């Protein structure tokens, strides 16, 4: 993989069907950002219906077609379809591909001093499997009856009797899961095998640790959902009844299913994936936050080892908490006690990591760069998201809160101003490495403050709407007395969503303008210590001119007696 290899490759091999982890990473990130934006647009349409029930959707109402809307007014089936696709797209096509496929692919091999991933062709295949999954999901908008409309959780029997879009959803999911599975194997092997000389496990940047634990979660949690998706496909296409009990009467018709199945089985298989999936969404984000935090506090992460142990413990525990999503299914006393206990236990390592990050600020020298602003926004927002999980994890307190907007607010605080802020921090932070140019920090600051205010206007009111008793997935809450009483809060939320949309405009402008027009960046514009800043910006095929050797830990900042306030990992000298 010498760099003169580049010149022999054609355009398609070099930029499209490339096996270079950086090109694949960029594709992942761009595709993921597209889906993130698309999923966000679906939500803005839903917010319109929630704020102004049965009003014609402005501007794009006419584009919704006749399956989702009637003369520009959203139909209940349209609302359900947008809801299901918003969840699916944001999680499986937006956030995970960006944090794992994008940042993981691009940054991780650079941070461990590797020339590429361990299996470059498998890496390319992961991307294309993801791409196919995305195309199938988008195509499902055009099938009769519209896309899947049974929620991103697709609970049978509803999903089994749903329109064709559900079949497309399942095929799409199979492709996406395959992509993640192949990617996870690649990540694990790369991190174990391809670390530079001297780069011991406890000298790994926290981001690499986060990717490592995440890869194990993907590897172990996804197969049950792949199996479950295929079982549901069989129910829908081959007349089996894995998830269908006998004696169903649907719309006055006796069901054709022979019965003998159990709808709860799907929920167990689904949440066995989907709870670790929550940590797949947040751990790489925590990794990015840790990198930016150490760099901009100009000091080592506080309790790095403790954080790593907490991370591994978190990953392990995430496999035995899944049924806390199912307290209301009629769960008995013993089993709910078990899952409530594991849920309380898993909150402890999360508190450890967050506390360590906040203590890192103590006696620091904080630079308020744009990536750092997003990190500083992330910390309190993630704290709110994490804390509000507590009442949901206690079965008794869960009774009035379960399946209400309180839940939506809780996990959106974790994923939206949480992970998505981490994604923005990562984008601003690594943009100069990828393009060789800086993003504009003025526009970046507008983007940050706009997003921070917007996010809180969107999700803050939802806690109160949820406490009031308003269920999720309601096309119109005003039909209930408790919903009507908090309709103003819902309207405020919707205004927040559109404001948040506007706040992304400076980012979009900044992103595309800076690719060619940004100020030129040096190889190490942030004075950072980890290995990716040792490579040229942008790094060539094969990454490093000479194989780097690592002499020290990942965050050697402000060491007394050192020439600068940072000592790169590859710099020889006093080891630490």
């Amino acid at each position, binding site marked *: 993989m010498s760099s003169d290899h580049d010149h022999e490759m054609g355009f398609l091999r070099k930029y499209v069907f490339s096996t270079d982890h950086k090109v694949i990473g960029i594709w992942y990130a761009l595709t993921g950002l597209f889906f993130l934006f698309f999923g966000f647009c679906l939500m803005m349409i839903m917010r319109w219906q929630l704020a*102004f*029930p*049965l*009003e014609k959707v402005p501007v794009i109402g006419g584009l919704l077609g006749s399956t989702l809307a009637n003369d520009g007014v959203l139909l*209940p089936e349209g609302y*359900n379809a947008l809801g299901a696709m918003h969840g699916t797209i944001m999680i499986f096509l937006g956030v995970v591909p960006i944090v794992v496929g994008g940042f993981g692919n691009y940054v991780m091999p650079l941070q461990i001093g590797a020339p590429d991933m361990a299996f470059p062709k498998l890496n390319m295949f992961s991307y294309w499997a993801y791409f196919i999954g995305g195309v199938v999901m988008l195509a499902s908008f055009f099938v009769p009856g519209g896309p899947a409309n049974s929620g991103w959780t697709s*609970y049978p029997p*509803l999903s089994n*009797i749903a329109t064709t879009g559900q079949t497309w959803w399942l095929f799409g999911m199979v492709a996406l899961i395959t992509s993640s599975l192949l990617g996870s194997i690649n990540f694990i092997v790369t991190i174990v095998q391809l670390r530079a000389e001297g780069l011991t496990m406890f000298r790994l940047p926290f981001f690499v640790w986060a990717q490592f634990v995440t890869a194990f979660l993907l590897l172990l949690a996804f197969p049950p959902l792949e199996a479950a998706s295929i079982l549901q496909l069989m129910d829908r296409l081959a007349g089996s009844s894995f998830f269908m*009990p006998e*004696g*169903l*009467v*649907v*719309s006055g018709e*006796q069901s054709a299913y022979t019965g003998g199945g159990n*709808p*709860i089985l799907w929920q167990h298989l689904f949440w066995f994936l989907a709870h670790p999936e929550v940590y797949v969404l947040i751990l790489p984000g925590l990794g990015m936050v840790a990198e930016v935090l150490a760099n901009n*506090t100009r000091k080592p992460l*506080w309790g790095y080892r403790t954080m790593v142990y907490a991370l591994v413990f978190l990953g392990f525990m995430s496999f035995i908490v899944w049924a806390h999503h199912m307290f*209301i299914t009629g769960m*008995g*006393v013993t089993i*709910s006690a078990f899952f409530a206990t594991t849920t*309380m236990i898993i*909150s402890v390592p999360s*508190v*450890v990591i*967050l506390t360590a990050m906040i*203590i890192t*600020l*103590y006696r*620091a020298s*904080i630079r*308020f760069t744009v990536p750092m602003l997003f990190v500083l926004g992330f910390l309190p927002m993630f704290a709110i998201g994490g*804390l509000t999980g*507590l*009442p949901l994890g*206690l079965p*008794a*307190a869960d*009774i*009035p*809160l379960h399946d209400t907007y309180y839940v939506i607010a809780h996990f959106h605080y974790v994923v939206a101003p949480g992970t998505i802020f981490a994604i923005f921090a990562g984008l601003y932070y690594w943009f100069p490495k990828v393009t060789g140019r800086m993003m504009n920090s003025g526009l970046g600051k507008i983007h940050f403050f*706009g997003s921070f205010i917007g996010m809180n206007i969107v999700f803050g*009111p939802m806690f109160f709407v949820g406490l009031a*008793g308003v*269920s999720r997935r*309601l096309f*119109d809450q005003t*039909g209930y*007395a*408790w919903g009507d*009483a908090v309709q103003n*809060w819902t309207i405020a939320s919707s205004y927040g969503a559109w*404001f948040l949309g*506007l*706040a992304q405009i400076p980012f979009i402008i900044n992103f595309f303008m800076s690719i060619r027009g940004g100020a030129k960046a040096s190889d190490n514009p942030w004075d950072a210590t980890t290995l990716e800043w040792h490579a040229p910006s942008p790094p060539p095929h094969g990454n490093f001119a000479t194989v780097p050797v690592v002499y020290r830990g990942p965050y050697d900042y402000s060491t*007394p007696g050192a020439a600068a*306030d940072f000592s790169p990992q590859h710099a020889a000298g006093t080891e630490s």
Partner: protein
Amino acid sequence: MRFTKMLCILAVLAWASFHLLAPPVQAQGSAAPDTSGVKIDGEYGPFLPTDISEHGYKIDRVIDIVHVFMAVLFVGWGAFFVYCLVRFRQKPGHQADPHEVKAKVSKWSEIGVAVFEAVLLIGFSMPLWAEVRAEIPADDDPNALHVKVLGEQFAWNFRYAGPDGIFGRSAAKFVKDGTNPMGLDRSDPHGDDDIVSGEFHIPTGKPIVVQLTSKDVIHSFSVPVLRIKQDTIPGMRIPISFTAKKSGVGTYEVACAQLCGNNHYSMRALMYVQSQNDFDAWLIEAGKPPEEFDEDDLD
């Protein structure tokens, strides 16, 4: 500051565009069923609604305690966070101190969090859950009122045993829309006096046992004012129990809390919480045979 100025401009633009996009002020058409004739009792707002159940205050208490705990933690973290941002911002000639801060505070706060969570879990949540889930009066308990609830797309059906106190047999094969939504077996004499209603009537001060199931997809039987919520799962019969307070007499709403299809949002039933006398009177009234009786349904 320049950024502040640009932010203000952005805010004004946002405000202006909302007003361009927002619909003109007029009576908003609602998709919800017309309930103009029925006044719903209770107080509703941005916090937990009125509670008319005997057990509800314990749930509310747990929620209150957790939120106070969360607020204390958040304010503690937040204060330290803001202090650091102000105190340790980068200044010329100032360098970060890389030495590990010996912070006992973090260790103790983490232990504190763990202990507090254990207390919440073992001291409050588990006994309460056991009370709600396990202490359910038996099927033949004469002190309790038994109601069978059947969810369907998109309505709730309520069935009472009638004067003989025994439910007749029922099965999916007997289900007939309109005339026999709960699939009563007309050949079973116990079923003759069973009462099937689209309204949920309950007396106050008496334990109620609700047997939940569904005929098609998963629904969730949610009554916020009673602090109960339970999925209704086809193929399973799940009991829950509660008691309404004597002071809780009034008209309330039953909702579906689990996505069940297109009209999920309007799967609503009215709940009449009545004194025992009023309830008994309703039972007698509802138990009168319908005027037109369909002979075909006899077999």
